């Protein structure tokens, strides 16, 4: 019996959710080939940059940081999709989380490497990168970043892996190929009530532990900017602003991933309209918070009226960065808020449109943080402008395609929706929730001793 026949004869949940592991369509191969080609092109661009120095980018004095640092913040932001959102939903006992946590956690683990590599792409001497570990200087925010991203990657990989063990054990028992992989990863797990209890306890602890770690990661990234004395970077709001922005873009990325997965793997029965509706509500809340944070950031600068800060601010409001700034406002507030505040547009396509806008808007937000401040030094006017070169744009395209590629491959080896959690939901969540709700109701006066 082939793997495909084996899976085809299973009951619905396992059949549908394991099907991508055993059946690969031509469309998949075409897309994979496109992604491989773009990624290789990006790799070529990087080798070109290594040979010719960072002068082959559009960077210049005083525009020290550009696309790579923007993408660094952006990708690490996207990585907050998984762990943080999934952890918050788990901790909050949101029952609708069951079909979306796995796909979210995969985004985290797979995108974080593409984020972490960005500052290395930006280094003048990437050959000396290990100096960061060999000769680390504890007072440098960049070192804090290395540590917190490392910790976050470890924690989120564990948080992806542990809840996947029962599924891996199930796949092992079914005998799907490659057998060695599944039997290795399943680490001898058998699904008994006792082991299930241990597992859930571990998940419960991990879900709580990863939340502060995830918050620390993006806070520290914000501090890379905020701990300098530069206009509009030296701001206390940057830590929380970055964390909040990361969650915002993470939710958007997750919605896009869910919509694509739903379409290509026929998962409409699992990623239901209600999931998109609920994710859309989260997006709505985050877009309102984003607006509030952005307002708070800018109004304090404007009212304070310090010269260098004002110059930077006005370059965004009315000057040479007005286009990316107001496009960002449209993408992060007007479009998502307009679409998500009405139930009629909180559909699959509505949430996807809003999410694409948010992803673009949040990329622009990082652009609007990094570039205008760099071009407004405290000493001397700057005549330079920043246009990313083909090298930077190719490398950026390569990192996007690289991430999409590894995500595609992951869906071919691991069930992208947690099978056991879906089944557990079918079995116990209705009674669990009714019990919980019953617990909220007022007690009978007679039975309460005063």
């Amino acid at each position, binding site marked *: 019996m082939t793997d495909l026949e084996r899976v085809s004869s299973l009951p619905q949940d396992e059949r549908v959710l394991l099907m991508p592991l055993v059946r690969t369509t031509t469309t998949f191969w075409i897309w994979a080939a496109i992604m491989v080609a773009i990624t290789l092109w990006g790799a070529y661009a990087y*080798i070109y940059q*290594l*040979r*010719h*120095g*960072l*002068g082959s980018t559009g*960077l*210049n*004095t*005083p525009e*020290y*940081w550009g696309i790579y640092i923007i993408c660094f913040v952006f990708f690490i932001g996207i990585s907050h999709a998984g762990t943080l959102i999934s952890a918050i939903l788990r901790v909050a006992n949101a029952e609708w989380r069951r079909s979306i946590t796995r796909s979210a956690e995969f985004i985290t683990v797979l995108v974080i490497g593409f984020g972490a590599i960005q*500052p290395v792409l*930006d*280094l*003048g*001497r*990437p*050959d*000396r*990168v*290990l*100096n*960061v*570990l*060999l*000769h*680390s*200087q504890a*007072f*440098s*925010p*960049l*070192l804090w970043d*290395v540590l917190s991203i490392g910790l976050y990657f470890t924690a989120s990989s564990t948080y992806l892996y542990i809840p996947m063990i029962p599924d891996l054990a199930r796949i092992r028992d079914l005998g799907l190929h490659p057998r060695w992989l599944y039997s290795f990863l399943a680490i001898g797990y058998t699904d008994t009530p006792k082991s299930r209890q241990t597992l859930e306890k571990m998940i419960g602890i991990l879900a709580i532990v990863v939340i502060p770690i995830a918050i620390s990661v993006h806070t520290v990234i914000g501090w*890379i*900017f905020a*701990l*300098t*004395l*530069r206009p509009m*970077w030296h701001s206390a709001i940057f830590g929380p602003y970055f964390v909040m922005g990361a969650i915002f873009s993470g939710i958007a990325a997750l919605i896009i991933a869910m919509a694509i997965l739903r379409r290509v793997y026929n998962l409409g029965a699992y990623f239901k309209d209600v999931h998109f509706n609920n994710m859309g509500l989260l997006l709505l809340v985050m877009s309102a918070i984003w607006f509030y944070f952005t307002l708070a950031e800018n109004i304090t600068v404007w009212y304070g009226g310090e*010269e*260098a800060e004002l*110059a930077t601010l006005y370059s965004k409001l009315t000057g040479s960065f007005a286009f990316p700034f107001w496009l960002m406002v449209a993408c992060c507030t007007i479009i998502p808020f307009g679409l998500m505040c009405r139930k009629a547009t909180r559909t699959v396509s509505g949430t996807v449109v809003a999410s694409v806008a948010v992803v673009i808007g949040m990329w622009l937000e990082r652009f609007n943080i990094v570039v205008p401040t*760099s071009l*407004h*030094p*405290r*000493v*001397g*006017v700057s*005549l330079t402008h920043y246009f990313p070169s083909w090298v930077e744009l190719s490398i950026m395209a390569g990192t996007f395609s690289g991430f999409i590629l590894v995500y595609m491959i992951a869906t071919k080896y691991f069930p992208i929706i947690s099978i056991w959690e879906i089944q557990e939901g079918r079995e116990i969540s209705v009674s669990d929730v009714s019990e919980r709700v019953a617990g909220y109701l007022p007690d009978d006066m007679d039975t309460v001793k005063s």
Partner: protein
Amino acid sequence: MKKADDKPRIDRRTFMAGGTTAMAAIAAGLTGAPAGFIEDMLHKNFRELSPERVQNIVHEMAQEYTAKYGKMVTVSAQGAQPGVLFGYGLDLSRCVGCRRCVYGCVNENNQSRSPQIHWIRVLKMDKTKGISLEESDPYYNPETVPEENAFYMPVACQQCRNAPCTKVCPVKATWQEPDGIVVVDYDHCIGCRCCMAACPYGARHFNWAEPELAAEEVNPDMHYLGNRPRPKGVVEKCTFCIQRVRKGKYPACVEICPVGARKFGNLLDENSEIRVLMQEKRVFVLKEDLNTQPKFYYFYAT
């Protein structure tokens, strides 16, 4: 029988160094970097090297540069003298904006001629507006200087006591020497440019490409932490001409200034010109509000 202690042990540092070597080999293969690349990378931080090792390194450097530029090059690693803290004074009422200091500095310190790197930037300001750094123009280019209604303010590294640049460096590649000079180890810098983001004076410069320096223009009198030629991808900055001042000479910009606007001396010596100046004139530092505590003092003599 061997004692347990004779076993080769791999500690963290050796292990990491092994990894570095492997990565270096890969990177060298990819980029076609010259031989000696791996040794380069395993270079310890200048401050961790023993005096003998430093002597060996500067000796090898001198030989390498002598061969490369076809003239006798010396590379010094002379340390700070006790009881010395260098300070700089600049008389704004004398400066005429001729930029001789800029090019004197380029010649002395072997800066890249293409792309051009200038450690000193002269800012033109409007007399009616006073000192307004954000609006100042570093690109002025008239027929003759000084221009009507303009005054000039040369800005280089302010050699801050509380330097924002050194504390952000993730690899300890930049630090303040005991005589107050903030230096960069070009063989250690990873080129992340955090220090450039941190410096409020724009005093640090990055080698965006392989620096171009013609052999006939090379200043052969070099210092390890100063004017030796830099590789691409690292940060550099003014060192008060460390190769000169530690031998008791003035920085090149002080010597070349045609109007005597530039003063230099030991802040710990009560009789030095710089101390007298601080007593007699009303001096100020740039961006005092940022608490960087520069050792570069501006003043008006008249």
